[in-house]
């Protein structure tokens, strides 16, 4: 017996159909909006992790679109390590005001007061305290059961493996070998108390998609993405922003370099790149010519093979 019994006439397509062309950005947008609405409707206490970077900016715009003409029905949470660029903090506050969303800021104050930094500790332990621990504490404190993050699968190999709804146990940990199946766009939002889901509405976006969307939609982004003469410590190919004093080696003097950031992280661990890209079209043109990945300038991903996966297992985004 065939699985599908033939019954005709249940559905007849409309006669005057002219298939519309939808651009890939619209397709990605529609998928992300669907995810945002699903989470807002199925979880009791969702929150959006807002990290101020380009991906967060896109995610925030998608949230505005998803609930229009209503307001964004969940708060934004910024996990502040104390090492973010000062431009980022100013941008964050202005952005939250302009979209009318509630902004929560969480810092691991005891660790910050104890002088935690990536030079004293290694980057992995520094991240563990200032980002992962802080994030887990914040989620627990506010009892959030779902948290949106702007991570994309094309960023890194272990991210490429992650579900849109990424299940986390009581301790916020990811078990990559035992993920829930995720079929079609039918997401399983069921969790026991204390467990949670990290949600990645931008899973299927690439870096190029994000910039094209920012361009097409006129989305404001932090100035650090655009090339300017900036003081940098120059070490071979690496450019280190001078934001924090402890980064400098004894006697090291900054030089002015026309540069920009490709990805925004903590200032001690985010290298800049030499660039002339002053506008978004410049950035897109530059992107076409790039020969290395966007996280290549992030110290944290390269401490050891598979370090992103290890951090994610521990509860990192």
């Amino acid at each position, binding site marked *: *017996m*065939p*699985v*599908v*019994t*033939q*019954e005709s006439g*249940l*559905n*007849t*397509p409309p006669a005057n159909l002219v298939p*519309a062309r939808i651009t*890939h*950005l*619209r*397709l990605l*947008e*529609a998928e992300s*909006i*669907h995810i945002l*609405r*699903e989470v*807002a*409707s199925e979880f009791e206490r969702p929150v959006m992790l807002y990290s101020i970077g380009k991906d967060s900016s896109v995610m925030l715009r998608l949230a505005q*679109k*998803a*609930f*229009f*003409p209503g*307001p964004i029905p969940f708060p934004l949470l910024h996990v502040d390590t104390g090492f973010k660029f000062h431009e980022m903090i100013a941008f964050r506050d202005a952005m939250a005001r302009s979209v009318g969303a509630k902004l929560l800021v969480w810092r691991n104050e005891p660790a910050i007061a104890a002088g935690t930094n990536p030079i004293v500790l290694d980057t992995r332990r520094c991240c563990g305290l200032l980002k992962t621990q802080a994030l887990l504490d914040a989620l627990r404190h506010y009892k959030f059961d779902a948290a949106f993050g702007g991570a994309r699968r*094309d960023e*890194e*190999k272990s991210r*490429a*493996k992650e579900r849109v709804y990424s299940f986390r146990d009581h301790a916020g940990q990811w078990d*990559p*070998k035992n*993920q829930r*199946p995720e*079929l*079609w*766009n*039918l997401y*399983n939002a*069921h969790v026991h108390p204390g467990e949670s889901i990290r949600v990645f509405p931008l*899973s*299927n976006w690439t870096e190029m998609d994000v910039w*094209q969307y920012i*361009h097409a939609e006129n989305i404001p982004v932090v100035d650090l993405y655009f090339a300017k003469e900036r003081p940098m410590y120059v070490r071979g190919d690496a450019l280190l922003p001078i934001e924090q004093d402890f980064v400098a080696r004894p006697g090291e003097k900054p030089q002015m370099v026309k540069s920009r950031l490709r990805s925004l992280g903590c200032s001690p661990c985010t290298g800049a790149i030499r660039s002339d890209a*002053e*506008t978004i*079209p410049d950035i*897109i*043109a530059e992107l*076409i010519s790039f*020969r290395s*990945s966007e996280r*290549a300038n992030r110290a944290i991903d390269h401490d050891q093979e*598979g370090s992103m*996966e290890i951090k994610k297992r521990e509860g990192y985004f």
Partner: protein
Amino acid sequence: MVASTLSEFSIHDFLGQESAKDLLRFSTAGSVDDGKSTLIGRLLYDTQSVYEDQVRSIEGKGTTAPGQIDFALLTDGLRAEREQGITIDVAYRYFSTARRKFIIADTPGHEQYTRNMATGASTADAAVVLIDATKGVLVQSRRHAYIAALLRVQHVLVAVNKMDLAGYDESVFRTIEQDFLSVLAQISADTGTTTEARFVPVSALAGDNIVHGSRAMPWYTGPSLLELLESLPASQEVQAAPFRMPVQRVLRPDHTFRGFAGQIGSGVVRVGDAIVALPSGKSAKVERIVTWDGDLEEAVAPLSVTLVLDRELDISRGDLIASASAPATVANRARAALVWMDQRPLDRSRRYLLKHTSHTVPVFVSSIEHRTRVDTLAHEPAETLDMNSIGVVALHLLRPIAFDRYAENRSTGAFILIDPATNTTVAAGMISAVLDADSGEQDPWGPVTVGEREARWGHRGGVLELAGPKALIDAVERSLFAIGAVTSRMDADGDALRADEDLAALVAALQADSGLLTLLVRTEESGALTAKAEGVEITVEDGDFLRVVSAVHQLLHRAGTLISTEKAHL
């Protein structure tokens, strides 16, 4: 600066070309180790879609000969995968050519991870099925091809891989082609779909016929795999089907606006179109199609929009807004194909949660029509479905839903089953037919079936534990009697049961098997009533009989014990 103005000029053209590209999603399929990840890595590498630091990070590693890059490491991104040399879970990769953008799902071949293969295939337009030229068609190749067909992945490309190990011999390729064509014919007969497959002889490792042609196989003059992927017709199926939009959320920012937000599952909607809200069947016209970018005159699948209707209808999350001239079917019984994905086998006595479009409804699998043997595609009778098995079942939903057959509409015909005890996703399902409430031939002298009892009594067998004042317990019992429920009251504190708790459980279980609703009661002095069924417990503080009784009835609906035709709150 020269560079800057130059790029500004060409960027305009570039963005124009980008927006003219369409998007194709494809997934890999096939048995373990036949080279799926290697093939994807090779495809990315030969189309210059990997960055230098990513290539550098895998050089000198993996399972390949010295000097030969192990391309599988580009997608096998988990440590356990690199250690074991196999793929465990789907990797999503992105690349584009001058004509198209691609989303790739590279899936695992190992049988243990079949659910992850299904995850990758569920959103794919095309499947690239690999077959190892040195091994031929294996059971796992058949299983994956079968799952892809059930999921109605439209296009199948068969890459016969490792031709380098088969001396690039045409007869090896042709034999496999014949074998697999007959497998596909069997699958077509089973699923009622016709899949047109294209075959390509390749070597993922050496790069033959992946992006470029092959000098080693002059006898093959057809297109490379990438050329095939670029030339597959883009799907217009979702836009051609009748209009469907599951409501995800009602947007009501103030009293002047009430809109229904959702992603269009299929078809087209225009301002002025007549629609029906299902399952209620109430009709209205579309007054506005609202988006952040301004109102639209018309919107097509799969856009996410917000609809405003010309009159007040009671529509909430989970309802389906559908074309009035071609509405969906509303029913609470359906036949469906299931791919079982959990360690715990399907249990027909248990209640599962069925997630379909934007709602979740309790469901029982009332019977298993057959299980399909993957090696022969023969149908065999089965009492259960265990991990990775595939079968056809009858579903009994505890609330009617609006759906289409999966063959006609992926978005309104697909569902997943969730186990409410573990919260995991245990099955993927595809609806194939509506079933009548009392379908199935009845043996006039045979035993009374579970379904017959349910139909007559309006409930399933089960246990309702009640603890509280006698007056409230009496009221609950009477209310159940009033609706025709067949109950049996047992005093948990009575001498016989107190002496042997196991006996109490045993009696309750036996009664439940005969379809009785056992009330296991414990009389207490306090004012509150505690009621428990199917692991869900409520406590009603109020002494008002009506309130208490209705709370207990709601609990029984939620637990799936009482079967209702109206919409109960989940």
